[in-house]
């Protein structure tokens, strides 16, 4: 079998090693544009898992690599004048040129032919082969030559980064954050041998432009970064190596192989550097491709198996890397967090590490995070079980459950939705009077919990069948006239509502106030008003449901805010508003906080029938994070939280104050 590999990076070289090792009769030619000792990039990082795979795949390279690398287990977060150190994270890194040198030697030793300084512009210039491997990086010629077959999608991230080095071996994977007049800059840095570290500086594109870096020569931008991170560098040099500012491009391909051609590593997929997985993924691709080729005589079957094995793994890393990259884009949002919580938020940014996992890696740090929220002493409950004070009421913990079943042990029990008027019911089964729950609320108080009354007016989503029979299906008979901000039906099946006039608004405002008062009389500790999800107050907030030209259309918040203010004046306890994602959600949340809301319950849109969320576990957490940090108000988040670990992580990281749990989390 003859194989041609374009690109002598880690993926191409490692593949050539494994192919020759599997069968010395394989003819393997590696073609590379650069000379063998080209020195681009500084160090590359591996996880423990990758090292295990390297050992299994080829012991001699593993031994050579472990002789030359730097290993450490700490992460430092420089933020707000403090350095938070976390232990228990095993990383290894190696100088990129050293790694390539080891791989080149081993490939030659096994008989692979390495041809350097061959600038190929057309695949026809390559030696003919049974298999062509594109290991030629993000700008892959192989991929570009079969654009239709691979169907690549490139997504440029709205940040800029420059890849520097420094002449000191840092003793931890270091994240450093510096605020300037133009915005926040961050450094991702890690050691890779005895005297050198990789030092990547990243910032948002707008900050980069405002700081004038766009037009600055390389040496001056280096000086700028050196000064910016002087405290972390501690007198050491910042080293340049073609260190120009780049935008990160996330690459995904529909297919990784076509006929006799296959892509590996960055040629097939890229993942943002902040989770340090580029070299890992490239080498693992090579291992899997070589294994698949070894198992199958049929080339097509081998290439399919390679992709089937690798794609789910790679996509998981790409998703995690994207979340991590988004975290760094939005990091100014977290500027208000205490350094310890900021660090916990950073460590849990990509969803791969949560509270439970970090408790195993670094129990002391997690104890400190727990104590931050939940205790005065060294012993504190995990974040979800820390008490929370809201408007003078202390909730024993931050777990919220739907329904008034006191056996759950939640801090807060959210009642079924009560319609403030009979015509505000969603279905004929909806309760209209909270007084019937006096006993349930009393039992909740007896076990130390608090009860929150959910108040709603269905608006144009009213007069529907009970939800056991489907959602938003109008009653066949016994319906009632609907009202909404504008006379637009909710769905094609819904009745057209009447536009609510001022008298109607006044009637409904009073009904909310009365219902809240009746709730207080029944013993409810807190009240939630539904201002989202396409119900009546939500329809005023949504530009798609509110087409009014009067004052309530010009200021879509006007009527809902009046209701919040009125209930606030009449009810002295925690007041929550349920709010959906929308173009002005942060602005609305901040205004409602001013109007007296203590808590925002974030919810999916549902403003129209066609609106749909990208459902998954925790799908509302980013929205909660945004509202909490930008509108400066406490939040409650659901979004299918079916494990306590997810909730502990969310609360610990300051992404929400309360978590609405699925029954699966405690059943």
């Amino acid at each position, binding site marked *: 079998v003859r194989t041609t590999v374009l690109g002598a990076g880690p993926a191409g070289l490692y593949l050539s090693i494994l192919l020759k090792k599997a069968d010395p009769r394989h003819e393997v030619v590696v073609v590379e544009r650069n000379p063998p000792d080209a020195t681009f990039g500084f160090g590359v990082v591996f996880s423990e898992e990758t090292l295990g795979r390297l050992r299994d795949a080829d012991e001699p390279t593993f031994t050579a690599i472990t002789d030359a690398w730097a290993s450490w287990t700490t992460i430092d977060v420089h933020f707000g004048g403090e350095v938070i150190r976390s232990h228990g994270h095993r990383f290894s890194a190696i100088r990129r040129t050293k790694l390539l040198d080891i791989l080149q030697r081993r490939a030659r030793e096994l008989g692979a032919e390495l041809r350097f300084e061959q600038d190929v512009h057309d695949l026809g210039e390559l030696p003919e082969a049974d298999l062509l491997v594109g290991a030629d990086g993000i700008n892959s010629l192989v991929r570009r030559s079969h654009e239709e*077959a691979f169907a690549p999608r490139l997504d440029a991230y709205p940040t800029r980064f420059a890849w520097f080095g420094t002449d000191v071996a840092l003793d931890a994977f270091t994240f450093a954050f510096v605020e300037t007049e133009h915005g926040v800059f961050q450094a991702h840095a890690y050691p890779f041998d005895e005297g050198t570290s990789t030092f990547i500086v990243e910032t948002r594109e707008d900050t980069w432009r405002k700081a004038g870096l766009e037009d600055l020569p390389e040496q001056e931008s280096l000086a700028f970064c050196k000064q910016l991170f002087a405290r972390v560098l501690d007198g050491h040099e910042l080293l340049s190596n073609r260190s120009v500012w780049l935008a990160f491009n996330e690459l995904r391909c529909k*297919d990784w*192989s*076509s006929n006799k051609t296959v892509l590996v590593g960055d040629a097939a997929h890229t993942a943002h550097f902040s989770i340090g997985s580029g070299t890992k993924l490239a080498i693992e691709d090579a291992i899997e491709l070589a294994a698949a080729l070894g198992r199958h005589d049929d080339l*097509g*079957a081998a290439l*399919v*198996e390679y*992709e*089937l094995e690798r794609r*789910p793994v790679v996509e998981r890393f790409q998703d995690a890397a994207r979340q991590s990259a988004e975290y760094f884009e939005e990091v100014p949002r977290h500027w208000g967090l205490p350094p310890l919580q900021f660090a916990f938020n950073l460590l849990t940014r990509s969803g791969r590490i949560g509270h439970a996992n970090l408790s195993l890696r670094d129990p002391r740090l997690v104890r400190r995070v727990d104590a931050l929220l939940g205790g005065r002493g060294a012993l504190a409950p995990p974040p979800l079980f820390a008490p929370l004070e809201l408007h003078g009421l202390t909730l024993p913990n931050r777990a919220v459950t739907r329904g008034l079943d006191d056996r759950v042990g939640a801090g807060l029990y959210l009642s079924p939705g009560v319609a403030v008027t009979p015509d505000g019911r969603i279905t004929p089964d909806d309760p209209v009077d909270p007084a019937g729950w006096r006993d349930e609320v009393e039992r909740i108080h007896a076990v130390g919990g608090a009860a929150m009354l959910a108040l709603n007016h269905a608006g144009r989503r009213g007069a529907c069948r009970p*939800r*056991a*029979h*489907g*959602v*938003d*299906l109008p009653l*066949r008979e016994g319906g009632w006239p609907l009202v909404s901000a504008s006379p637009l039906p909710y769905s*094609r*099946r819904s009745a057209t509502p009447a536009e609510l006039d001022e008298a109607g608004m006044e009637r409904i405002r009073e009904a909310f106030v009365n219902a809240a008062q009746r709730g207080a009389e029944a013993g409810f500790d807190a009240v939630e008003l539904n201002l989202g999800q396409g119900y009546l107050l939500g329809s005023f907030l949504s530009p798609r449901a509110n087409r009014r030209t009067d004052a309530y259309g010009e200021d879509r918040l006007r009527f809902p805010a009046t209701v919040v203010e009125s209930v606030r004046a009449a009810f002295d306890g925690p007041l929550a508003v349920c709010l959906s994602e929308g173009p002005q959600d942060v602005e609305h949340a901040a205004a409602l906080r001013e109007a007296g809301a203590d808590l925002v319950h974030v919810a*999916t849109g*549902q403003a129209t*029938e*066609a*609106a*749909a*969320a*990208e*459902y*998954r*576990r925790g*799908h509302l957490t980013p929205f909660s994070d945004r509202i909490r940090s930008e509108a400066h108000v406490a939040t409650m988040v*659901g*979004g*299918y939280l*079916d494990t306590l670990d997810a909730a502990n992580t969310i609360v610990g990281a300051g992404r929400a104050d309360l978590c609405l749990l*699925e029954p699966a989390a405690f059943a």
Partner: protein
Amino acid sequence: MRVGVGLPTTTPGADGALLVEWARQADAGPFSSLGVLDRLLYDSFDPFASLAAAAAVTQRIRLATMIAIGPLRPAATLIKDAASVQALSDGRLTLGLAIGARDDDYEASDVPTKGRGARLSDQLAELRDWDVSPVVPGTIKDQRPELLVGGMSGPAFARMARYGDGYAHGGGPPRAFQSAAAKANAAWSDLGRPGKPALWGQAYFALGDEAAGESYLLDYYAFTGPFAAKIAAGNLTSPRAIRDFVRAYEEAGCDELVLLPTVADPGQLERLAEVLT
């Protein structure tokens, strides 16, 4: 978890007699359901006509569309088809619906692909009115079939949670099913539906003559390009692969897994029955 088996309505070489005999044998076997696919422009049978024939020769087995492409048919026709199977089988139909993946089936039906999601929602809403539908026979007005909805997008999961009774997954490794099941559960919870959605999965198998199975899958999915090879590679071709797969789906929360044959030979049913018992 219950395990059903497919009726080979899209598998080459299957004739009418074979389908009827297959249904009879499946009914006598350890299978909870008999599933059919739906493809217009392919060497295949109509799903509802096939299930109607199966209904006539079976006593107990559930009859399921996994899935039928709802928008290819006018709503009234779709409901009439489903109602007829429901009546002929005395209420054994499970109706899985989705928009499907083939544009040429829409073209051949003279139905635009644009707006097909909304049309499927309309059809589901009408199916919810089964008991008052003018096209449903009077004898089964009180037996609306269970409605499963398929699809992988956010709107598809929302549609499932609004109008369906459960979710029909399109096939894939257990991890893919698990991730889709979490999305289905999340949508169900988000829309405030009581309880949980029924979760149905599917996979291809061939016990013996796997080459024939592979060439069928490569052909059936040829329209997906190189992806066909990936589907063909997922064909379960050994007792062990089937047992592992069944166990993994059960752990992933699947309620009913339908194993679709890729070889139209009744011997497949016997071999599958042996593996499952």
